[in-house]
């Protein structure tokens, strides 16, 4: 799994990105370019995993940065980490896109479309990522409180943007079961994470 990122490096990176965002809010084009250099591959990876199509992921990335250029001033450093803020923008766009496609082509399953073979959607990898992420954030215990099925459902939903319906299809369980796994899982995570200090 990927290397543990030390808290110091995280803090430094956050400070750098926050400064860049502040400069972008003042229409500083070089800061914008630097912000892109530091964040594009992470955000592209996030988008690609969800939409599993390079041209759609590129489109999402492009839209997200255009948005960031126009709205960098709305970033509030006291409310969220810069990378979290940027990642939310990309995730939300990617998820909106997936849901739209789902509505457009309700009869098509995700496996039928031109998913990118480089990013296979498999539960073990997603679960590993979830645990590794939790590890990096020292909230491993929270993720560990989830049972295997819930962990799998949460990981697939988070990293691959599967909806309740898609999860039910993918995991071959009834919709109601998936919903209650997710509901219970999120509830457990929340209580556990609230007990731990928020990641910063």
């Amino acid at each position: 799994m990927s290397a543990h990122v030390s808290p110091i490096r995280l803090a430094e990176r956050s400070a750098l990105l926050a400064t860049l965002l502040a400069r972008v809010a003042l229409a500083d084009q070089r800061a914008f370019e630097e912000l892109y250099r530091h964040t594009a591959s992470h955000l592209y990876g996030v988008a690609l995993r969800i939409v599993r199509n390079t041209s759609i992921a590129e489109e999402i990335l492009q839209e997200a940065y255009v948005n960031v250029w126009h709205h960098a001033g709305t970033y509030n450093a006291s409310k969220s980490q810069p990378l979290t803020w940027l990642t939310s923008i990309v995730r939300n766009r990617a998820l909106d896109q997936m849901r739209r496609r789902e509505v457009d082509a309700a009869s098509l399953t995700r496996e039928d479309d031109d998913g990118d073979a480089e990013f296979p959607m498999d539960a073990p990898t997603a679960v590993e990522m979830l645990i590794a992420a939790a590890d990096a954030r020292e909230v491993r215990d929270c993720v560990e409180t989830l049972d295997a099925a819930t962990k799998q459902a949460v990981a697939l939903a988070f990293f691959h943007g599967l909806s309740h319906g898609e999860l039910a299809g993918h995991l071959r369980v009834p919709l109601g079961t998936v919903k209650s796994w997710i509901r219970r899982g999120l509830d457990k995570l929340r209580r556990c994470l609230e007990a731990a200090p928020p990641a910063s």
Partner: protein
Amino acid sequence: MNLSRPDRQERLVRLAAEFALGTSPPRVRRRLQAIALHDRAVADALSAWEQRLTVLAEQVAPVTPPPRVWARIVSRLGIDTNASPAAGTTHWWERLAVWRSIALASVALIVAIGIYDRSRSPVPAAGPIVVVLAGADAKPALIATASRDERFITLKSISNTAPAPGRVFELWALPPGNPPRSLGVIPPGDIVTVPLSLPAREALTNVPSLAVSLEPPGGSTTGQPTGPVLYSGTVERMY
């Protein structure tokens, strides 16, 4: 649905968690996004859950996006990051070498496969000066042609190229070592002409390339491109 009511706190937390996780159905997603615009409690609940869950995304392996993504962002925003002094003194019209070489390669192909189809052109026959204007993605967008003795350039759109609403395309000559010179606003339409004050052979003397910028109605008032340069290409003199 007033999600801010205290007795609905539980429900709000659950909806916000599912929103951040990404499992909410489309209708619920849209609804929550809309409500969050004016309801602070809902906005805070969504953002709290995004904070909690988005950190998990840091584990996703980074993937370098292709360079065209940045090129498109820059072109969409009409910004020029290389224009800032610290980045050097190169002007945008001197950085077209890459596009030029790609566009050059497309000329022969386009002429050969007959995308430029003179027989169907409603305007007078154009002649042996050809410019393929391509965007940053190197895809040909417009073909400009002119007869050397005629006082107009014919432009044909080959990829449904049209300016954004309320904007116009303006055509520029790019003489080396000199600032761009406007050749005029490009009228709307698939096949149009831009009048020249001199015969094309003279108007395009010492002009190795042309470019198209996005401008306010009526064209740039500064004498220089004010909007993004969307397309450019090398002037080819056909024999």
